[in-house]
């Protein structure tokens, strides 16, 4: 670990701190339907959308109607994505003449994963998806799945803020205003900034270039193995060309991070030089992943009339973030003790550490930081392969997702996930002093706590059940790429990532099989919608309640003590649920790696 490495991490966190207030204030204005400087351009478009889609912008919805509208929109847009993939061969913007996405379980998996903001990818972008599918199918869902998450977080905040009301907003209005104000303008400017760094943005066919030094490579047969000649030596091919995949990448790249989606245009995601060409583009991408999630803490504080509560939550998030990045950075900088004769020491001429599956321009600090950020939030973009991280370095992203991605969190989903933990924290604090728990003037009663527990239990249930089945059945274990405890980590990570709607992977696992495509697809859907409904139910129930003025028995939610208790609840709930599985996977592997064991 180096001073420069820590400085880069500190600069990153300071940028997030700096954006929280201005962006949060902007988000509040957008959802309160107040004037913003973008109105002259966007207001006419907004009105046009309402007119063509039949939305009454003055109509307010109860939580049930809000949930139904959200579900209907998700179903319709998911079906469209499935359809687009299956007929992309007949659609425009397909210079590589890519055919339909097959098999159908892969197309289902992709549709489910992008609709739920997961962006799990069992396919390789550049060889599977046409430019049309990437733009109108995948990048489109990057917008609307993010907007859906943010809308729901705002609806939850309204539920806390409102008193004795039946309604929590209008889903369609929240969706449209989020897309037009919070996402689109930033994406137009941001993607051009990324292009200035070297992220490509074009519609040209893949370029064929003549490489400088022609290469002799073994000829591979249809089975992927080198073909042997009659003399028993491998047959060699002379390679003189390289095909370079292109595409409208920047426009997808920015929303991929700004909306914490994470689905790469290319298979290598943000490690690909065309997606993330420079250290500055890397900083911008990490910044985008946290920006909205962080701003929502400010929005929470101000919309509920308790700004310091927002900052108390921000503090808890920042503390958990720092713990994660410290462990990951330490583990990766330490390197792999089994690489003998290899110089893994940091110096002025190399970052050292575990460089398998990492890029030189990012080195150790930025790879560890990116892995922490992308899993604190529900992003899932990667700039290095988590599967090749050291056991503890790879455990950090996994644990981040297991804690429900509430550390700044996915856009929207991080906020409402955190609010469920807040409800539980207030409840536990209430039990400790023997008073009815209150939260910002609302009594927290049996109904809210039941719904919060349902929310908290759905996630581990999906993860552990499916991971357990996969790790004992042949159709699960046959996909493992790395044997030993690491194999269990691969399976555990896959379902954690899917149910947590993250989308990053221990990529060695061959997930493009009927079992994994289907199981992971359903894990994505369950992790998204089964958790959203109890969350909206809490919001609806809170909105109806009377305001109770704080008394001496009220546990204040604006103090560092509250932040510490909140962290405690998050860690205890996460640890109790997942520690046994983790001890058989990454923790065991760490001990065995140090003991010189390989598998």
């Amino acid at each position, binding site marked *: 670990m180096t001073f*420069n490495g820590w400085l880069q991490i500190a600069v990153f966190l300071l940028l997030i701190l700096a954006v929280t207030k201005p962006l949060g204030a902007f988000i509040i204005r957008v959802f309160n339907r107040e004037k913003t400087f973008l109105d002259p351009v966007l207001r006419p478009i907004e009105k046009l959308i309402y007119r063509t889609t039949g939305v009454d912008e003055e109509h307010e919805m109860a939580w049930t109607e809000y949930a139904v*509208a959200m579900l209907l929109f998700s179903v*319709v847009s998911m079906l*469209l994505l499935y359809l687009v993939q299956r007929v992309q061969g007949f659609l425009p913007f397909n210079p590589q003449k890519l055919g339909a996405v097959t098999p159908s379980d892969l197309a289902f998996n992709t549709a489910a994963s992008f609709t739920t903001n997961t962006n799990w990818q069992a396919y*390789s972008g550049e060889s599977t998806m046409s430019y049309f599918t990437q733009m*109108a199918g995948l*990048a*489109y869902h990057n*917008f*609307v799945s993010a907007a859906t998450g943010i809308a729901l977080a705002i609806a939850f905040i309204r539920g806390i803020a409102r008193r004795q009301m039946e309604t929590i907003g209008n889903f*369609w209005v929240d969706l449209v205003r989020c897309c037009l104000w919070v996402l689109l303008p930033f*994406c*137009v400017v941001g993607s051009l900034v990324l292009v200035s*760094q*070297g992220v490509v943005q*074009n519609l040209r066919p893949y*370029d064929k*270039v003549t490489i*400088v*030094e022609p290469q002799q490579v073994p000829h591979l047969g249809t089975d992927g193995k080198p073909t042997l000649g009659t003399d028993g030596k491998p047959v060699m091919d002379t*390679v003189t060309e*390289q*095909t370079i995949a*292109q595409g*409208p990448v920047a*426009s997808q790249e920015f929303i991929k991070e700004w909306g914490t989606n994470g689905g790469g245009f*290319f298979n*290598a995601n943000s490690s690909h*030089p*065309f997606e993330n*060409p*420079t*250290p*500055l583009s890397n*900083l911008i991408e990490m910044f985008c992943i946290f920006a909205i999630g962080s701003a929502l803490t400010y929005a929470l504080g101000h919309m509920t009339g308790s700004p310091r509560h927002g900052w108390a939550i921000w503090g808890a998030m920042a503390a958990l973030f720092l713990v994660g990045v410290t462990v990951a950075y330490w583990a990766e900088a330490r390197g*792999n003790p089994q690489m003998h*004769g*290899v110089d893994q020491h940091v110096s002025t*001429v*190399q*970052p050292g*550490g575990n460089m*398998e*599956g*990492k*890029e*030189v*321009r990012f080195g150790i600090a*930025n790879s560890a930081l990116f892995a922490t950020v992308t899993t604190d939030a529900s992003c899932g973009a990667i*700039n290095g392969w988590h599967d090749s*991280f050291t*056991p503890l370095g790879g455990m950090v992203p996994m644990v981040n997702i297991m804690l429900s991605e509430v550390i700044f969190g996915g856009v929207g989903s991080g906020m409402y996930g955190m609010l469920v933990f807040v409800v539980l924290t207030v409840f536990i604090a209430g039990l400790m002093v023997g008073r009815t728990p209150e939260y910002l003037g609302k009594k927290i009663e049996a109904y809210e706590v039941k719904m919060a527990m349902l929310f908290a239990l759905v996630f581990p249930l999906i993860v552990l059940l499916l991971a357990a089945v996969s790790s004992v059945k042949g159709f699960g274990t046959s996909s493992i*790429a*790395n044997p030993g405890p*690491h194999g269990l980590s*691969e399976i555990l990570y896959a379902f954690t990532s899917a149910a947590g709607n993250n989308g990053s992977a221990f*990529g060695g696992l061959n997930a493009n099989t009927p079992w994994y495509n289907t199981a992971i697809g359903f894990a994505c859907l369950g992790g998204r919608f089964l958790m959203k409904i109890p969350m909206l139910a809490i919001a609806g129930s809170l909105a109806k309640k009377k305001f109770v003025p704080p008394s001496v028995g009220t546990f204040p939610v604006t103090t560092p003590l509250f932040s510490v208790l909140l962290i405690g609840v998050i860690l205890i709930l996460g640890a109790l649920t997942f520690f046994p599985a983790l001890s058989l996977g990454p923790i065991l592997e760490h001990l065995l790696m140090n003991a010189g*064991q*390989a*598998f």
Partner: protein
Amino acid sequence: MKRNIITAILMTIVTTILLGLVYPLVVTALAQVLFPHKANGQLISQDGKLIGSRIIAQPFTGAGYFHPRASAAGNGYDAANSGGTNMGPTNRKLINRIKQDVTAAQSENPGKPVPVDYITTSASGLDPDITPANAEFQLPRVARERNISEDQLRQLVLQHTEGRQLGLLGEPRVNVLELNLDLDSKFPLQKRASR
């Protein structure tokens, strides 16, 4: 309910047109006007034909060239098939591969520990850069092959060493393709017969 179903269908269509088509096409047009070279992948042409992208690694195996990092993209450096090995830290295949490559590297450059990025595969399989340590490790071989002094070559490598961006971000690095192209123009490879 019925009204919300109709809205859901219409909303999907309208937003797909706006966010899925208008937005990316407008950004493409702007990018092509503002940053045409970058937006098209920083392709390098020589004698009228394209020979590569500045930021995409291509294979070099000859002793007279600097070698990029190992690649697991397709059959190696396949820029239409990016990816890494995804080998875990306790995978015997990885440990054995490293062991073999270390032995080979040390026979070329005895006594020196091998820089870690020299024997590990990159994440994208297309990493255009190597560390300055890696360049220094390869330097004696290239100098020997090109009949130039190590100091002469070190100067050239230094010219192609890029520091941290804005003095702070990322890690120092050497772009392999640019360095090799510059080598070919300044110190062309001699006929093999002399060796």
